């Protein structure tokens, strides 16, 4: 079973992801801050991280850097708002695999994840 970690400060996003992914057979954990996320990745294995770009405390880019530093092979998909293209491009350069724009439908999410996990 593939395990996915959702890092987003918004509860509705976390819940939406869980409800969209769990029925499809993914193991999902979600946290609200970058710190918690990093701590969790230390303890448990994950195949993919869903990371929100805009968060208070540690923001998405910072979290991405730290994850990639520690686990260079980790696949990260950024969650962005419309029009934050520059930040999205930046994250890609920093090693993110892809990004999806809010609001997204469950189908969009699943497609992106499938794509990411297929690539080795």
């Amino acid at each position, binding site marked *: 079973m593939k395990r996915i970690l959702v890092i987003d400060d*918004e509860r*509705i*996003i976390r*819940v*939406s992801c869980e*409800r*969209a992914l769990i*029925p499809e057979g993914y193991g999902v954990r979600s946290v609200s801050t970058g710190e918690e996320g990093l701590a969790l990745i230390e303890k448990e294995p994950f195949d993919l991280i869903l990371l929100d770009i*805009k968060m208070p405390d540690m923001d998405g880019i910072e979290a991405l850097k730290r994850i990639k530093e520690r686990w260079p092979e980790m696949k990260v998909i950024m969650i962005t*708002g*419309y*029009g934050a*293209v*520059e930040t999205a491009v930046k994250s890609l350069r920093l090693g993110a695999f892809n990004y999806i724009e*809010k*609001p*997204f*439908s*469950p*189908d969009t999410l699943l497609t992106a994840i499938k794509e990411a996990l297929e690539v080795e």
Partner: protein
Amino acid sequence: MKRILLHPERSLAAKLIIAIGVLMLLGSFIFWYTLLWKQERDLIAIAVRYGDSFIEFIRKSTHHGMLTFNRPLIQETLENVSIAEGVKRVRIFDHKGKVFFSSRREDIGNFVDRASITLLANPQKWNVYRSEEKDRRLMVIGEIPNEPSCYTAACHIHPKEQKILGFIEADLSLAVLDKAQFRQGLALIGYVFIFTIMTSLSLGIILYKLVSKPVSHLVYGMERVTSGDLDYSVPVKTEDEIGMLTATFNSMVKEIRSAREQQERWTQMLEEEVAKKTEEIRKTQAGLIQTEKLASLGRMAAGVAHEINNPLTGIVTFAHLMLKRVPPQGEDAEDLKVIIEQADRCSRIIKNLLTFARATPSERAEVSINDVLSKTIYMVKNQEKFHNIKFNINMEEARFITQGDATQFQQIFLNMLINAADAMNERGTITIATRRIIVDDKPFVEIEITDTGCGIPEEVMARLFEPFFTTKPVGKGTGLGLAVSHGIVRHYGGQILVKSTVGKGTSFFVRLPLMG
């Protein structure tokens, strides 16, 4: 006049009078002194001549007495002569200085003093001195020469070889002379003083008339002018220097007056300019405030938009999840689809809003306006909306290259064309024109889109570019089209202008700066 006397340092006339007076006094004194001195010399010379002739007279008078050796006669002669007031003493003495005869009996037998001997040695044989009695005296000495009648006389006192027999000395008083001279001197001083005063006074009056009065007229005139009366001109009464000064002053005043008028004109012009500029600034400021308002509104909107994306995600997700659970063709499925559609619509609205609020452009490239416009027109011509609309295209033959995003510009033109069609109820003529214009010395391209629709009333005009403002019925318009267009155009340094007549039509003018 009083002023002159009280403050001589403040008056030309007084100074001049004083100077002339002093000079005259000085000159007079020098003259007087020289005159009197000359006179003195002349008088002395006359006195000496008188003295000499007196000596001669004595010589002749005593000659007979000497010849006859009548000593008492000689003595008597001398005594008689000295009765006259001016003759102080007459005496006769020999080589050795022994006095033989004298008007003063006590002298006889004595020797003469130093003064007489010194005088003997003196070539001019006279001397003027001051006696113990304080009066001036003239002492004259003459020789008694030896003559044949003498040495052949019976007495045989003097031998033939003796050239000079003796000396006659006369001591004459010059008191009369001195007195007369003194009186004359006084009179002269008196005359000089009177003359000086009279001349000074006359000069004073003349100066006053010639200089002081005209000058004070001039001063009065100048005072009038300084206090502001530039129309006053001092009357020119003479042709001399004062007259010239006055005339020159008058023309100077004229100059000042015209300069003053010129200055006033300039000031007025300046004031008008300032008023104009102030108005301009005010307008620009109002424009800037408007732009700021829109910008901050945009920023706020962006913030809100981003916020809304989160709950939207939730709605979309859960609607989808439900959709999977219900029968595919049923009512529930349809209802859920509606929910999803509306959520999508929300998303589109937000996207539009975020485009409007974006600070950084998506693409800055070189755009050919005519090309973009042509493409847009081509796009709409085929649409049903535009089937009954006539197109009047008037694009200048030029490559209007501007900086910008082709897609965004297309969006703007499209939006305007759609607005035009709606305004005409999809029937009418749309005129599209492009032309080159100059704004503030810079080249711009102006794109005109004119419709023959219902026009825009005044109260709507003011709110035309307000975000979310629309006159369209609910659901038909977002009210963002023009706001977004305005933002884009302004971002690239252009402007959008509107002209409209209610009932006749509307024209939109999009101006963008040309490159190169």
